[in-house]
């Protein structure tokens, strides 16, 4: 990952995190503010409901009190107590309820039998005893209770009064539907209210203006919780994707005349506005983050251009140096760390060039010394017979002139042989110094290897050291090489291998495509005595040889040739198991046709 990418990533993460944190903080604050407002609004609505509830209760109480204390009712109960027919008063409740605007009114006999019912006139004669079982005194205030009607059970606000006469208690139970109380509420926008009626038998139902908008199925658990605990509770209700909003629903139990909760007030507070605001905050945050990232990209681009360009230049210069271009230099503008680094780099390059030149000089001196040592060594061997032969000639001239001719003949032959030997030595040195530049062309490596193996077929089959050649030629591309020079290298390697296997063995010729498609490989594996690690390391050093009569230049020349082809020659060996030479040759790409490669 480049510095620019890292810097860009860092800036992006930094900006995004900052914006996200700020957005989260704003959202949290907005959330708290909305919750506070929601609680206030709910509390206000609940208070309004309680006031309406009390007000309605007072009205009902007044109405029932008015009926109970009216002269007509006193006369009625007196007549009833005196044995009047109940049938004469079957419509009594309806007229009284209408006068007091009550939805429900029952006139009940002391034994609980309904004498007259305003809301269900046909129910006369049936008994209502629930209030007779209540502990004394009977409730004075209005209370909630379900009332049976022809249409089913209806949640009502009731008031109970006794009308005593002649020691008998007649009862009046009057009231109104609770949903009328809820209808009078005027919830502000975003709030809705309904009452969940819980009858003593059967399933509950929603009543009130907001009953259509509440989904009882989504509120079941909340309502059940409130009914069980008899304390108010709230829950966030997902109204589903159709409505696309959430709502906080407060459930407040409404007390009845016993411990049983007859109804639950539901106040729904829409979170639509809050969610809308949160969405806006999120969108704005995303926009800010986007702009921030864009600015970050620009800024980081500028910054990285400021910082990474010199570093990149340094990296390129280092690469150039790695490729041998020691003349490369970097600009040293600026006095910051990057500038100092450039100066240091240039200094380092200068130092390296100096050290390299010194190393080259020392190597050159060492090479000359080695050359002189080898030359001296090589020349010393033929010189000593020359000196002996000349001294023999001199002694024969002086001591045995009669045998001088014979000695002269022999000495002359010896001198010529040694001089020829000297010429050979000198010729080899001359060859090493006059290595020709390769004429590159497309060479079929398999064909070349096959012809070399064919050439050495006779030598390989010699006795007693018979060598078994094996050709393992792969599907390799043509290589870029001078076929004469490459052939000489391979022939040299084969000769070395033959020398390494005096007792015979196996010689494997192998070609293959290298791990890098741009190179083809040739391996020559023998089963000779093998080499030590040290021998392997020094094997390509000029004048180093493991053979008694070798000059030590063959493999050095081979390495030089392969190097001139931009290839590589290596050796691997295991003692007593054999040695493998490997040559990597660049694949012919057509660009080097007829091209001379300079030899450095």
């Amino acid at each position, binding site marked *: 990952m480049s510095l620019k990418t890292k810097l860009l990533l860092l800036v992006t993460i930094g900006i995004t995190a900052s914006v996200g944190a700020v957005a989260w903080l704003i959202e949290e604050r907005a959330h708290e503010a909305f919750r506070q407002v929601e609680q206030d609004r709910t509390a206000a609505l609940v208070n309004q409901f309680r006031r309406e509830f009390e007000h309605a209760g007072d009205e009902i109480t007044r109405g029932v009190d008015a009926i109970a204390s009216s002269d007509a009712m006193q006369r009625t109960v007196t007549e009833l107590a005196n044995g009047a*027919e*109940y*049938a*004469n008063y*079957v*419509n009594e409740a309806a007229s009284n309820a209408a006068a007091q605007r009550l939805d429900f009114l029952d006139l009940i006999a002391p034994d609980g039998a309904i004498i007259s019912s305003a809301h*269900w*006139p*046909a*129910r*006369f*004669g*049936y008994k209502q005893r629930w209030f007779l079982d209540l502990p004394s005194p009977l409730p004075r205030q209005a209370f909630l209770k379900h009332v049976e009607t*022809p249409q089913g059970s209806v949640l009502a606000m009731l008031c109970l009064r006794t009308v005593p006469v002649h020691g008998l208690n007649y009862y009046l139970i009057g009231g109104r539907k609770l949903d009328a109380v809820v209808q009078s509420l005027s919830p502000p926008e975003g709030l809705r209210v309904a009452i969940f009626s819980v009858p003593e038998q059967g399933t509950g139902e929603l009543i009130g203006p907001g009953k259509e908008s509440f989904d009882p199925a989504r509120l079941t658990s909340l309502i059940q919780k409130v009914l069980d605990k008899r304390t108010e509770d709230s829950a966030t209700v997902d109204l589903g994707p159709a409505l696309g909003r959430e709502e906080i629903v407060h459930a407040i139990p409404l007390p009845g005349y016993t411990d049983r909760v007859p109804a639950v007030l539901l106040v729904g507070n829409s979170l639509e506005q809050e969610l809308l605001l949160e969405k806006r905050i999120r969108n704005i945050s995303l926009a800010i983050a986007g702009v921030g990232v864009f600015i970050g990209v620009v800024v980081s681009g500028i910054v990285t251009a400021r910082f990474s360009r010199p570093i990149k230049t340094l990296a390129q210069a280092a690469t150039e140096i790695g490729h041998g271009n020691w003349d490369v230099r970097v600009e040293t503008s600026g006095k910051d760390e990057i500038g100092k680094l450039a100066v240091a780099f240039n200094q380092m390059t200068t130092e390296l060039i100096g050290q390299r030149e010194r190393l080259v000089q020392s190597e050159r001196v060492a090479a000359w010394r080695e050359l002189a040592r080898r030359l001296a060594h090589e020349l010393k061997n033929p010189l000593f017979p020359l000196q002996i032969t000349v001294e023999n000639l001199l002694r024969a001239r002086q001591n045995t002139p009669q045998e001088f001719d014979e000695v002269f003949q022999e000495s002359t032959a010896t001198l010529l042989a040694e001089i020829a030997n000297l010429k050979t030595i000198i010729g080899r040195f001359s060859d090493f110094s006059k290595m020709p530049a390769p004429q590159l062309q497309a060479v079929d490596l398999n064909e070349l290897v096959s012809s070399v193996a064919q050439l050495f077929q006779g030598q390989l089959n010699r006795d007693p050291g018979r060598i078994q050649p094996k050709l393992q030629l792969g599907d390799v591309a043509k290589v870029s090489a001078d076929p004469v020079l490459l052939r000489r290298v391979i022939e040299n390697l084969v000769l070395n291998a033959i020398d390494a296997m005096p007792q015979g063995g196996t010689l494997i010729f192998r070609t293959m495509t290298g791990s890098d498609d741009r190179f083809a490989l040739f391996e020559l594996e023998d089963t000779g005595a093998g080499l030590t690690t040290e021998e392997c390391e020094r094997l390509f050093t000029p004048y180093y040889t493991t053979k008694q009569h070798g000059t030590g230049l063959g493999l050095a020349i081979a390495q030089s040739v392969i190097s001139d082809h931009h290839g590589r020659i290596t050796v691997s060996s295991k003692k007593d198991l054999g040695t493998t030479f490997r040559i990597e040759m660049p694949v012919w790409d057509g660009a080097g046709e007829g091209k001379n490669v300079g030899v450095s």
Partner: protein
Amino acid sequence: MKRLLLRLFVISSLCMMAGGAYGGSRPRYGGSVRILLHDRVLSIDPLGDEDRPAARDRMAALAFEHLTGVDAQGRLRPGLAVSWHADQSKRAWQFRLRLANFHDGTVLTAADVAASLAKSNPAWKYSAIDRQTVSIETPYAVQQMPELLALPRYAIVKRQADGSNPPILIGTGSYKLNQWQAGERAQFTANDDYWGGRPFADSIEFQMGASLRDQLMDRQLGSFAATELSVDQIRNVELNNQTVTLSRPADLLALVFVQPDSGGRPGRKPVDARVRQALGLTLNRAAISNVIFQRKATPASGLLPQWLTGYEFMFNGASDINRAKELRADAAAFVVISPIALAYDFADPLARLAAERIAVDAREAGIIVQPYAESHLYSKAARGSMNADAVLLRVPLQSLDPSVALAARMDDLGISPESAPAIFGATRPEDLLEIERKLLETNRVLPVAHVPQVLWLNSTAHNWQQGLNGAWDLDQLWMEGAR
């Protein structure tokens, strides 16, 4: 002398008082009688499928006469026929007509009567023996033919078709129809040529569709001679020392299940017989009669009241909730018990209350009854296509003869007339008892109460004759103060 003068003064005073008294109670001709009706009558045709047949028949009785009649005490008397006789089999009857004229001045003939009766009952054969004699032949014995012919549907009507639709109806009654506004107002004027003599009142005017409030106001203003009342209004009227006349509890309030072959709710099966029986056992007839009908009605266990037949007590009308529950459970094991839609007359608040009471009592046995109001409950054609499983009907007692009353009641309730021959052939009360028992055993009709007809009468109206069954006879009616 002083004693003589004193005696003369006393005698003259007594004579004056007696004369005054005689003059105060003597019928007077003239004046208009205004009657307030609760129902709206759309046609006066006795054979029409009228929504309000009872009110229609009351008005029709003024203009149309029958061959025979029944007086207020239920005694048979001649009508347009002065005499009659039957053969031994009671299947061939001959009626001798009196001399009478239709309102258009034409003379009543046997052919007119035969034509009229043929429309009333096409199943029988009618023929004019001579100008004044008409014969009736029936496929089965009809023991009470004279009583039967006193029913409203057998009114003698001349239908004068002049291209208009419906035809002009002409009768022979003591009053003739002068003005007719369907559902609103009807005025009958005295028939000066009436064979029985001109009625006292110059005209009788019916105002229809009066609400309870209108009735109350009109009673207080005294502008009407009479208004119909419901029994729950009796107490208030009596508290004001006003005159209320009640018939015997003659009308039948009954719950009738809609027959499968006469329509009923589309796509629904008729109510299971066990459920019908269970519903009958839940009826608290006493509560309905005593409370809703203020003890003016009597619980009905039979189709005809006890005071008419003497055998109604043989039918058990007691409620038995436990047995009803058993029957319902038994039925529920085999069929799905759906709520029973019970239609009641929207114009009758007491019928509504009774229907609701039936629903309340039925709940005790787990039977759901859903009462709802219908406006054309008494139209047989409308009833056939009604969206109801059962209807709560109040039908009048059309005859004081048990056989005829039973036959008419079955017709009004929409029960198939298969048993008509048996009814008309019955000669003993036991025969009628058996017929009625068989009818009630099907539980297709659940009698609820026998209800009286109630009438408020202005103190200025005299000789208002109301039969035991509530039928009106206004021939002798006269108004005090009429000139």
